[in-house]
């Protein structure tokens, strides 16, 4: 009985089939990384990282949270190849990229050097964190943005859930950069990464270390970015 009730709740319309429901971004399926993804992914440009992510790349229509130990560890660089690729591959209209509350001015020549289409980049500098979250929700849900990058010092769980829903509705990738101290807080993001500096040998230059904290449909753990 209970099963029938649940099935009815899952089918709001007569026409929706099981395949349609599974294609819905809000449905979370447990599966291993090799399975074909239900929604498109963007290659990260790093084969070691691609291999660890379900579908082989950054998930679209979802929220990714990056916890950073310090600025300058290459946190934006992680996403730039994917952003360039999604702008280049666009067939009808080049999608917009929105950067909200970046800690410093995004340097246009560096972005152009990487291949970002500057005419389709929007920088938003809100006065408060609430306005930044509101702007991110608007941009994610608008359906005209491919990716929204948001820098925040701290936020509550409820707002993150709203961002995730907006990202799913607008089929956009939301990337949230937060300080590393939020590592042990719960988060609705479908992918959580931590980027920290490694304390390796004294003579060699310290390299940033990437750790997957939460991967829906994958295994958490450290990723060696330098591996071929």
């Amino acid at each position, binding site marked *: 009985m209970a099963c029938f009730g649940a099935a009815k709740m899952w089918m709001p319309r007569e026409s929706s089939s099981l395949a349609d429901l599974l294609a819905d971004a809000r449905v979370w399926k447990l599966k291993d990384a090799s399975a074909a993804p239900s929604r498109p992914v963007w290659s990260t440009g790093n084969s070691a990282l691609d291999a660890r992510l379900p579908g082989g790349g950054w998930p679209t229509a979802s929220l990714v949270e990056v916890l950073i130990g310090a600025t*300058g*560890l290459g946190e934006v660089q992680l996403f730039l190849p994917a952003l360039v690729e999604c702008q280049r591959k666009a067939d009808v209209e080049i999608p917009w990229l929105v950067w909200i509350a970046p800690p410093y*001015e995004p340097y246009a*020549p560096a972005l152009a050097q990487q291949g970002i289409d500057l005419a389709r980049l929007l*920088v938003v*500098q*809100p006065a408060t964190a609430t306005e930044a979250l509101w702007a991110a929700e608007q941009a994610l849900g608008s359906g005209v*943005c491919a990716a929204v990058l948001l820098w925040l010092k701290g936020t509550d769980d409820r707002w993150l859930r709203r961002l995730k829903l907006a990202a799913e509705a607008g089929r956009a990738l939301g990337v949230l950069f937060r300080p590393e101290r939020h590592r042990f807080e719960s988060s609705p993001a479908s992918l959580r990464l931590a980027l920290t*500096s490694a304390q390796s040998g004294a003579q060699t230059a*310290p390299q940033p270390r990437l750790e997957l904290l939460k991967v829906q449909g994958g295994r958490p753990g450290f990723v060696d970015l330098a591996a071929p």
Partner: protein
Amino acid sequence: MFAVAEVPPALAAAAAPTPAAAPVPAAAPVPAAAPVPAAAPVPAAAPVPTRRTRLWYAVVFPHLLVPPSTAAAGAPPPGLEVLCLHAQSFTSCVSIEPPNALLLEVKGSLRLFESLEHLHGLLDARWQSLGITTHSAIAPSTLAALWCARVGFSACIHEPTLLASRLASLPVACTVWDAERLRSLRSMGITRLGELLRLPRAGLARRLGVAAVRDLDIATGREAEPRRAFVARQRFRERMDFEAEIENVAYLERACEPVLGRCARFLRERQAGVQALQLRLRHRDGPATLVRLGLAGITGEQRRLADVLGERLARVELPAPVRALELVSGRLQPLSAASLDVFGACGRGAGPDTAQRLVERLRARLGESAVYGVAAIPDHRPEAAWRRVQELLLDPDGAPLANAAAAAVPWDPMPRPLWLFDMPVLLADAKSPQRQGWVLEHGPERIESGWWDGKGVARDYYCVREGHGGKLWIFQERRTKSWYLHGVFA
């Protein structure tokens, strides 16, 4: 009627006062030959329009007050615009002649008003009913009508050929030429236009300037001077009084909806859009609260206007409950075809979100300057190689062009940091790269440029990896040998 019979002698008379007109071919025997062949086969009695002339009705308001501010700017005084609207009920072509006159083209209205006398009577009755003193005159040339009206000579000249003889008795001052020109005329002993028209053209042009001769040509109908019809400025303006006072901004947004709907219909009927709107919220006492709306593009869509208004209203703090609101649109602008939507009239919820709408919403809440784009500039100095862009290319068609422009800029092959500091941060001696044990990754790259505008730089840039693994962009000032941090590779 008698034009055919009159043409040759009249033309001769018109040419007579200016013997020096020979070099101008228009006044030579050509005109005498031109009308005759066309007119010859036609019986003299037939009502044939011999020439496509216009008939101008000039009206001067001698007691109209002209504020000094508008007089200095050359703008028509506001009272004249109101009178112009009255005049537009008689003809479609009304032009404002600063400082205090109107010029109406009445030839086109003769059929509607049956005869010139009838129309003239109606016009005079209109001015009388407004209680204004006027001087009016009718002539086939603009300046002739104006000059007659200015001196109060209520002439009614039908034939262009009669212009020269009828204007002859007017005083020279009616031309409102500048004082110096009038003074030189007085010293020449010329007080009437007739005396002026008799003078040789070449000498006249030398003494008074070519503009004066051209004025005379226009007045005597030898040269046409088209006028631009006045188009009244249109705005949507509507006031709505509420039955109960509204304290809540959310209710206010709902209350605005019908007015906004009428505004959108007003714009749709005129195939126009607006880029600015003003909402005036009136309270029981105290000054009204003004809410200004700016849009990223010209639009007449109700949904977009409502979106922006909603965001803007959410930020408004009401000092007191609102009793009435007034919506005033900005200047109406023609709508480009691209922004029209086939299903635009279907109401709210139709059509997907666009980048333009997103930017408008963000700007309405966060402020104009908080939402911007960035552009690269080909300059070797890092701080001069970019700028903020407020005008975004929101039009989907504009993108490929910008893309091509970006690709044309030759990029330095050297790495550039993603974050650039506004001002380079000076690294104290104790923090110099060598002492910190930072590891060199790339460099040096010498940038020496900008000596021409006083902001010259001479620096050696290095990419280094600092102790925590962060990648920094630092430079050494070549002159002072001090180290600065300029950017971060994020």
